[in-house]
Structures are given as structure tokens and as C-alpha cells.
């Protein structure tokens, strides 16, 4: 790829979300807005290698997209109603300079971006569709990048995006920021999408790599952008705190040959103190806004306990147990219970933890969850019950789809056989 192409790519990454958002407000349809934006990109790819990148690339792209919209209308009545709006806008802007145009866009851009985020995460779409659409429209990822991130075929992603746009059109989803009773649930959906992307990068559910840091960066960036757009939403800061703090450990999570290193064995000197500081700041902001008991803020507070401990044996496990107690009350789930059991075992001994884990044995939701037998095996190992621990690790290994994790678990199973610590 030529230098100019790479530079244009960079401009696209910076400008595309705002461009699509601004156009979506004008034409009222996200799918159409993206088509117009893509047309403008094509035009840029044709012109800029020769003319150079304009001083205000965002304004150039927006103006080009608007002209395209008018051209399109001349061939189709679909957006006849919108033509008047666009035409009117363009007419009144005939005398405007690029700077004026830019200012006009900027006035609304924050709101438009927010509208776009909420629309891409609309509950009428399936979760996968929301993820694909968000990464595409707000993250600026190509279909190929999204496909590789989730290890699914590119055609599947492309289809998902096409269908998502069609669903939004057919359901006549309004391009707006939800208010009132709706808002909390809608915001929850947005946060869920962002965190899902983050988690896929943080501990990949499948594939060869234990982590995919670039995905974490994408999610974190989206979270930070959202926090700036909704500065008074405690849970947004809570989610950002959670992601900053978890990201601080990314460099310590994999060993020299890509093998996973568990939390308590990580070299804490490799934890990113800058990200820890940012995470703690975001958590404080959430707490100042009265959101200390929100689900994301609580999870962030748990991670913060680890972040504050300079060594594993300085971890305030009792505080972590208390936080899990609060989290279990708020968002009860077998997975939260499992994590709580681990914390209990660290604070009060493996027998106490095992009791709680055994109580989860019949949970249908955990039937295929590899961490349940993995944790059970771990606790049995600590209690010296090696022959019982081994089948647990083997079972866990059979449940995970991640190659690295499987190796780790089989290793632990083998070590139970020899009664030695795994290498």
C-alpha cells in the first residue's frame, strides 16, 4: 500500500464515525449514511493521491458525501424528502467557506456520534449484529478486520452488517439519543457491546492467541469516546475503569512463547502503571457520580484491588469478597458466584472455596464453562487431593476452544499424575 493510501486510511479512522453520524442525521438512515460516506472515501482515494490530503479532510469528505446524496436523488426518488433538506442546507451554504461548514458540523457532532452509538447498539438487532455494526461504523474497522477479530468468515460479517442496516431501516429506528425510561437499558446495551469486544480481545474465546490486544485497544478507545460524550454517566466511567485496569495487565498475561500467565503469577513490574492510574481515576469519577454500586464499577473496583497490590500476597482478598458479595446481589449469575468462590478460597482457605464451588456443580449455565472444573481442580490440588484434581483439569481442557488455554490445563492434569508442580 502506498504512503498516501496509508495516510488516507488514517484520515478515515479519524473522520469516518463523525462523517457517518453527521450524514445519518441528515438522511435519517444509517445504512444510506454509510453508503454516502463510502462514496466520499472512494472519491478521496481517487483525488488525494494527486491533489494531496486537504487541510480539512473531514469537511472535504462531508461536502463530497452531500453532493453524492444530491446526485443519487437525481436517479432515485427514495430520498426525495431528504433532498429538500440537503439541497436547502447546501443552498444556504453556497456562500460558506470550508471553516464555516466545519463549524456547522462540529456543533452537533457530539450529539450525532451519540445518536450513532445508540443506533448501532439498538435492541432490535442481535448482539452479533450490534457488535459488527459498532465496530464498522464507530470503530472504523473493515469487514475483514472484524472477521479476523472474531475468527468468522468475512462473508458472514458482511452479511450481518447488510442485514443489520436493513433491519434498522425496516423498523424505522429513529436516529436519536434515547431519553427517559428507555435510556438506562439502551445505555446498558451499548456498554455490553463495548465490553464484549474488549473481552474477545482480552481472553480470546477461540483461536491460537491467548489475547488480541488490538481489539482491547479498539474497545477501550470507544469507551473513552463514550465517556467524553456522556460525562455524567457513572457506569460508562465504570466500564472505562474496568477496561483500563484490565488492559494494564495485558503485557504480563502472556509468556515468551505466548503461553498464558495467570494473574497471581504475573510479573507485576510489567503492569502498565499509566493505565492503572487512568483506571483508578475513571473509577473515582464513577464513584463521585454516585455509581460505586453499579455492576461495571463494582467489577472495576475488584480489578483495582489487584492493581493496588504490589505483590500477589498483598492482595486485599477480603475486600474482594465483599465486592463480589455486592456484585452477586446486583447481578446474580453462576459466573459471578464462581469468581466469588475463588476470592473466598483466597481469603478463607481452599476448603471454604470448594464448598461454594461444589454448590455450583449442578448449574446448567456452567455445564460447558471450562473455568468451573478448572477452579475445582485448582482447589482440590491445593487440598492435596491430586487424583480428584486431574480429571477436573482434563474435563476443563476438553471444554475450552482456546488452544493455549487447553495446553495449560492439560499440563496441570499431567502434573497431578506425577505429583509435581507444572512447568
Amino acid at each position, binding site marked *: 500500500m502506498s504512503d498516501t493510501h496509508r495516510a488516507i486510511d488514517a484520515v478515515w479512522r479519524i473522520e469516518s464515525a463523525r462523517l457517518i453520524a453527521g450524514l445519518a442525521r441528515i438522511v435519517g438512515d444509517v445504512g444510506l449514511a454509510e453508503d454516502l460516506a463510502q462514496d466520499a472515501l472512494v472519491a478521496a482515494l481517487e483525488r488525494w493521491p494527486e491533489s494531496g490530503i486537504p487541510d480539512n479532510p473531514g469537511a472535504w469528505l462531508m461536502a463530497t458525501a452531500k453532493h453524492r446524496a444530491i446526485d443519487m436523488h437525481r436517479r432515485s426518488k427514495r430520498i426525495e424528502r431528504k433532498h429538500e433538506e440537503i439541497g436547502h442546507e447546501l443552498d444556504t451554504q453556497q456562500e460558506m467557506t470550508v471553516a464555516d461548514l466545519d463549524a456547522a458540523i462540529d456543533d452537533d457532532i457530539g450529539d450525532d456520534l451519540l445518536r450513532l452509538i445508540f443506533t448501532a447498539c439498538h435492541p432490535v438487532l442481535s448482539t452479533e449484529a450490534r457488535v459488527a455494526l459498532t465496530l464498522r461504523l464507530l470503530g472504523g474497522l473493515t469487514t475483514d478486520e472484524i472477521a479476523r477479530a472474531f475468527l468468522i468468515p468475512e462473508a458472514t460479517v458482511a452479511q450481518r452488517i447488510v442485514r443489520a442496516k436493513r433491519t434498522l431501516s425496516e423498523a424505522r429506528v429513529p436516529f436519536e439519543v434515547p431519553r427517559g425510561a428507555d435510556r438506562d437499558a439502551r445505555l446498558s446495551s451499548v456498554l455490553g457491546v463495548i465490553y464484549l469486544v474488549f473481552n474477545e480481545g482480552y481472553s480470546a474465546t477461540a483461536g491460537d492467541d491467548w489475547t488480541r490486544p488490538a481489539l482491547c485497544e479498539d474497545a477501550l478507545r470507544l469507551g473513552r469516546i463514550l465517556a467524553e460524550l456522556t460525562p455524567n454517566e457513572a457506569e460508562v466511567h465504570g466500564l472505562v475503569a474496568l477496561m483500563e485496569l484490565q488492559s494494564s495487565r495485558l503485557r504480563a498475561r502472556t509468556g*515468551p512463547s505466548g503461553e498464558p500467565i495467570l494473574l497471581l503469577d504475573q510479573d507485576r513490574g510489567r503492569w502498565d502503571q499509566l493505565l492503572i492510574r487512568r483506571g483508578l481515576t475513571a473509577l473515582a469519577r464513577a464513584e463521585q457520580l454516585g455509581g460505586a454500586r453499579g455492576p461495571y464499577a463494582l467489577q472495576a473496583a475488584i480489578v483495582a484491588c489487584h492493581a493496588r497490590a504490589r505483590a500477589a500476597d498483598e492482595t486485599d482478598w477480603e475486600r474482594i469478597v465483599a465486592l463480589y458479595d455486592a456484585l452477586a446481589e446486583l447481578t446474580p449469575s453462576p459466573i459471578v458466584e464462581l469468581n466469588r468462590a475463588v476470592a473466598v478460597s483466597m481469603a478463607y482457605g481452599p476448603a471454604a472455596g470448594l464448598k461454594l464451588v461444589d454448590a455450583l456443580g449442578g448449574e446448567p449455565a456452567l455445564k460447558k464453562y471450562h473455568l468451573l472444573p478448572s477452579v475445582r481442580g485448582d482447589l482440590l490440588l491445593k487440598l492435596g487431593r491430586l487424583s480428584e484434581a486431574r480429571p477436573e483439569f482434563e474435563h476443563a481442557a476438553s471444554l475450552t476452544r482456546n488452544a493455549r488455554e487447553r495446553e495449560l490445563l492439560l499440563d496441570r492434569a499431567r502434573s497431578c499424575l506425577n505429583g509435581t508442580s*507444572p512447568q
Partner: protein
Amino acid sequence: MRFLVMVKATKDSENGVLPTEKDFAEMGKYNEELIKAGVLLAAEGLQPSSKGARVRFSGPRRTVIDGPFSETKELVAGFWLWQVKSLEEAIEWVKRCPNPMAGDSEIEIRQVFEAEDFGDALTPEVRALYKDGIRHTSQKA
């Protein structure tokens, strides 16, 4: 990817000439854009080199040299740490920066090493750090 973005010093910055209120306002607006874009990780201004020092290393010898230092153009007057996807994106953001100094100036962009970049530099000694193995809980690391 992360980049350290450095504003190079000028005679003025070395002489302690502070930016005007207008300069501060414009730079403040720019930093806000970086924050809103989720790109900014850190930002600081550096005091003139007259307030700093250097330590020279030669074998076992350490020599302290007090500022100011003469190669003005090579000195760093301020820096940002950014998280972006490519060098090109960093360049594009830098181009949008208001003039960091009165008169001509320069901003340098350097990529931060990430763990993956170290590759084979992680030696057997480092491996030994992990020799004790994975002995604790399987809690999500």
C-alpha cells in the same frame, strides 16, 4: 500502538518564554479533541533545560552535567503519549496541532515498544521467571 509525540525546544522555550493565553487556549482545545477521540494517554510540558541535568555513562563512570544544554533543536520541550492504530494516524493528528511555538518548530513522533516487539530478546533468564509454573487459581488473569 502507542507513540511518544515530542515538541522540540526553541530559543524561546529554553529562555522560559511561556505561551500566550491564546496559545494555551488553542492547545487546550486540541488536547480536548485528542481526549474526545480516546487517543490521549498523557501530556506534559517540560521546563527549560537550565532546570535539568544529564548523567553521562562510560563503563562504571557516571558524570553529572548541569543544564542548560546547547543543542536547542534537539531538546524536548513537551510530550504526549498517544494510542492510535498507525504511524500515519499519529502524523495526521500532529498535522492538526496548532503551532506549538511562536515561529518555526518541530514535533517528533516515536513509536513505543510493545511486548510483542521484543520477540527473541526475552531470554532463558526471563523464562526462568516463569519456571515455577502456574500454581495458583485459574481465576481469569
